[in-house]
């Protein structure tokens, strides 16, 4: 990266950090809710982007880990009275553990097998949640999840969403920072080798299987933590909150932002969440037919996914960085494009 490019990057990063930090003050409650969703999505997409961009694995099931984190945290807090913060930690660990168990056999599969496998995994998870009615409330859902609290300090009242916004900001920032350090570390450079050529990486002595599994577990941990926060935020979760479409939304966010790009997770999450909000608003305008919101969403999801891959396969952030003359890590999709061409 050129010196100018790097300095520019630092300035932009600082500006974004300060801007997003100050933003909640100016937002009303419903806007703050959107802010929280963007933050949660950023966490999930940070993990997915790492998984797809550097480990080259396509996952259509991040929603499953989101759901597992949400339900674990909710059930621990509600049924067992575990302190919420501890519940979050346990939920994150549990989700990662599930990922390890599931990933061991699944990660041996090639890209397209894995895509279907993760999709199947999410459908199975949703099924199980739906069936375990006594435990999870089944399809009706789990109401009455206690709110986030530290000791006697419980998050309630009119500033609840406001404070949640900052909690989510902190966690999202943490996730992005962790990603940045991971990418620059020795395991991170090994991951990059993985993305460009798995046989090459193997030859270089990189423990391919172990790295893939670690990244998979990490991405699940991000999603699980976000899911737990989601549960405490809404106080009510149901299998319907975690449809396959959610996983696809995460996929779109990761692809749009830029696979393997760290800030891409934030950009993708923001762009797509705002777009979803816009579509919902437009679709429910008076005079719009009943189907309008659904039609708009599906049409835009489809179009965005196809157009991004055809026109800007590297994603928004890397495209902009290229304009600014910055050198960027090559994502798996581009790398294989270079081989195929």
């Amino acid at each position, binding site marked *: 990266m050129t010196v100018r490019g790097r300095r520019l990057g630092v300035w932009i990063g600082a500006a974004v950090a300060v801007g997003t930090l100050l933003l909640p003050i100016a937002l009303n409650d419903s806007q703050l809710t959107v802010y929280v969703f963007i933050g949660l999505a950023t966490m999930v997409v940070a993990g997915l982007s790492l998984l797809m961009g550097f480990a080259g694995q396509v996952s259509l099931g991040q929603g499953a880990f989101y759901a597992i984190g949400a339900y674990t945290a909710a059930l621990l807090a509600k049924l067992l009275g575990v302190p919420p913060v501890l519940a979050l930690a346990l939920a994150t660990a549990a989700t990662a553990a599930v990922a390890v168990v599931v990933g061991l056999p699944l990660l*041996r*599969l090639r890209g397209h097998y894995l895509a279907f496998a993760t999709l199947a995994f999410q459908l*199975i998870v949703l099924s199980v949640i739906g069936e375990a009615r006594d435990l999870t409330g089944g399809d009706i859902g789990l109401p009455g999840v206690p709110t986030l609290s530290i000791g006697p300090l419980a998050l309630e009242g009119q500033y609840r969403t406001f404070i949640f916004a900052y909690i989510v900001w902190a966690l999202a920032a943490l996730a992005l920072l962790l990603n940045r350090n991971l990418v620059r570390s020795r395991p991170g450079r090994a991951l990059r080798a993985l993305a460009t050529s798995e046989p090459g990486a193997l030859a270089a002595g990189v423990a391919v*299987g172990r790295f893939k599994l670690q990244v998979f577990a990490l991405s699940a941990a991000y999603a699980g933590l976000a899911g737990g926060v989601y549960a405490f935020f809404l106080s009510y979760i149901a299998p319907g909150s975690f449809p396959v479409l959610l996983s696809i939304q995460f*996929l779109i966010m990761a692809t749009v932002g830029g696979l393997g790009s760290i800030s891409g997770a934030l950009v993708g999450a923001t762009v797509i969440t705002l777009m979803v909000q816009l579509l919902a608003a437009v679709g429910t305008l008076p005079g719009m037919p009943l189907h309008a919101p659904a039609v708009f969403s*599906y049409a835009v*999801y489809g179009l965005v996914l196809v157009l991004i891959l055809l026109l800007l396969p590297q994603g928004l952030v890397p495209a902009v960085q290229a304009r600014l003359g910055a050198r960027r890590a090559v994502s798996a*999709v581009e790398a294989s494009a270079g081989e*195929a*061409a």
Partner: protein
Amino acid sequence: MQLLLQYLSSGIATGCTFALVATGFVAIYRVTRVVNFAQGAFAVIGGMAAYALLGRGLPHGAAELVAVGLAATAGLLVGLVAIGRRGSPPLASLIITLGIGIGSYAVLILIFGDQPVSYDGLPGSAAIGGVTMPLQFLLVVAVTAATFALLAAFFNRTYLGRALTACSSNPHAARLVGIDTTRMGLVSFALGGALGGLAGVLLTPLQPVSFNSDVGIAINGFAAAVFGGILRPVTALVGALVLGVAEALVAGYSKASYESGVALVLMLALMVWQASRRAPVEEAAA
């Protein structure tokens, strides 16, 4: 015993439709190495188009044929977008087909609304081996058998069919010999579209379809295709029949809601088992 035979016959009928979907996956994957996530959508398009055409007064037979033609055209269009640009890596193509599949929801809802549709299949029933089954079952089996025979003849006896097999066998050599592998890929997408559409046309009288039925259909088809490594249609046929029967038995003897789980679990188990038999590196390098 009666009940068992009922389940068996119904399972075989639905299994045949899965087999057609699976063969669509195989046809496309063999030539292009792309897993077409829109394969289920072809079935939905076929079924819903047939429904619309029948509603407009087109007679049975003609409506279904036109519907299959429409699905084939849809296949061609998907192919153009997914692989039209030379050098698209298969993984990107996969996500593109996924995007198109989702986009198809919008189109289908606009045209048909969001409720499931169905139409009457072959009227009447027949008694075979002491079991009364709808004639539609027999139609499905007959058409599937005929289709497989036609496909075999196409791939083994015609020059175009051999060229497609060549692309699958050795894409580099195919190019050396002058075969345009991208154009062959488009042919295979059109074929996959037709097969998916045919599956949908046969399935809709048995199970109403709506805009988002494609996920379930695709999963069933893919699970069957995995049986043969997404490369061998006859093995996929066997897998599809096993799957169809298994689902029918599960739905009949235990809870209906478990039925969809069967395909999921079987597919996962199959894929993991197959993966453990192959060296991981050879998959990535292939």
